[in-house]
């Protein structure tokens, strides 16, 4: 064993002992702690959301989520920047690939609408069932990935993707600010009526925000994917 592997091993062993101390000292809670208990008891009354995790993500910890969306926004922008200089010449990218088979092309045509619909379903229902904007957005982007696989020469409008991404983001921020004016604070979802508990039009602005997140995340993933795809070497 060389020093190059031995030193990390020793260090990680020591770090491991620290982790093990954490593990050994860990006593699982028997009851919900006060924060969790508050969410369990108050979520429905305060936000009207059926999915407590969604309420936390979109409302209580909405600032985190806004940051999280921004992380993706940043990543998309930077990946675009990083790869902008290595863009393959127009029309050359992907042209070196063999045409994908009939099966894949047809299958894609059939599947993509379904996938997009499923993605939309997931983010629209985020406040009721597991899932939400991020998951839905990822599903939407996977549809796009499929299209790219089927036809590597396909070009998506960067302008459109960027406009969707930006307007969704801007609307998100504006909704947050409306919360300060119309309700209790930034990103308060009670700017819209809470509606009937358990129905699709409930939980105030949560569905709206999740739709925006879904669109934004979908657009960002798509942007990252297309940026990566367009750099493919022509040779």
């Amino acid at each position, binding site marked *: 064993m060389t020093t190059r592997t031995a030193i990390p091993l020793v260090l990680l062993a020591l770090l491991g002992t620290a982790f093990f101390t954490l593990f050994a000292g*860990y006593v699982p809670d028997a009851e*919900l702690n006060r924060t*969790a208990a508050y969410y369990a008891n108050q979520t429905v009354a305060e936000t009207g959301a059926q999915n*407590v995790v969604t309420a*936390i993500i979109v409302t209580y910890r909405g600032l985190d989520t806004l940051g999280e969306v921004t992380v993706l926004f940043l990543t998309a922008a930077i990946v675009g920047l990083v790869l902008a*200089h290595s863009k393959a010449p127009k029309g050359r990218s992907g042209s070196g690939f063999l045409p994908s088979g009939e099966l894949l092309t047809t299958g894609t045509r059939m599947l993509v609408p379904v996938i997009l619909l499923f993605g939309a379903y997931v983010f629209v229902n985020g406040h009721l*069932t597991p899932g939400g904007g991020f998951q839905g957005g990822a599903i939407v982007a996977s549809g796009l990935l499929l299209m790219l696989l089927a036809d590597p020469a396909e070009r998506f409008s960067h302008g459109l993707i960027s406009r969707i991404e930006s307007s969704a983001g801007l609307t998100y921020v504006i909704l947050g600010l409306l919360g300060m004016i119309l309700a209790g604070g930034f990103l308060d979802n009670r700017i819209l009526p809470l509606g009937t508990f358990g129905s699709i039009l409930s939980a105030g602005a949560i569905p709206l925000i999740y739709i925006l997140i879904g669109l934004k995340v979908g657009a960002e993933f798509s942007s990252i994917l297309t940026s990566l795809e367009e750099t493919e070497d022509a040779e």
Partner: protein
Amino acid sequence: MILIQIAMLLGFALILLGLYGALTNRDIIRMIVSFTIADTGVNVVLVSVGYLTGREAPILDTIPVADAAARITDPVPQALVLTAIVIGLGVTALMLAYAYRLFRARGSLDISDYTELKW
């Protein structure tokens, strides 16, 4: 040993394993993959900390609202882990883009080839 502890140990093991990979593989792509393993480990630790034995997911469709406090697990780590996953994804994508640019610039993916800045 109950489920939480297995999950948590696994999470820590993944962290250490990932870090070991990241610190010993000189190949940039391997380093990035190693970091995603470590990130996964962190996420496993995150959710395992919030798990309460015998409880259900914090979705109040079948659980009556009044019983929620007694029947659901801690929802906070689940919310956090979502954020952590997305952030991890962002960083990974960024590292991959960097790797691509580095490769284009120098034709090498060996981290030890990029040491012209030092001292």
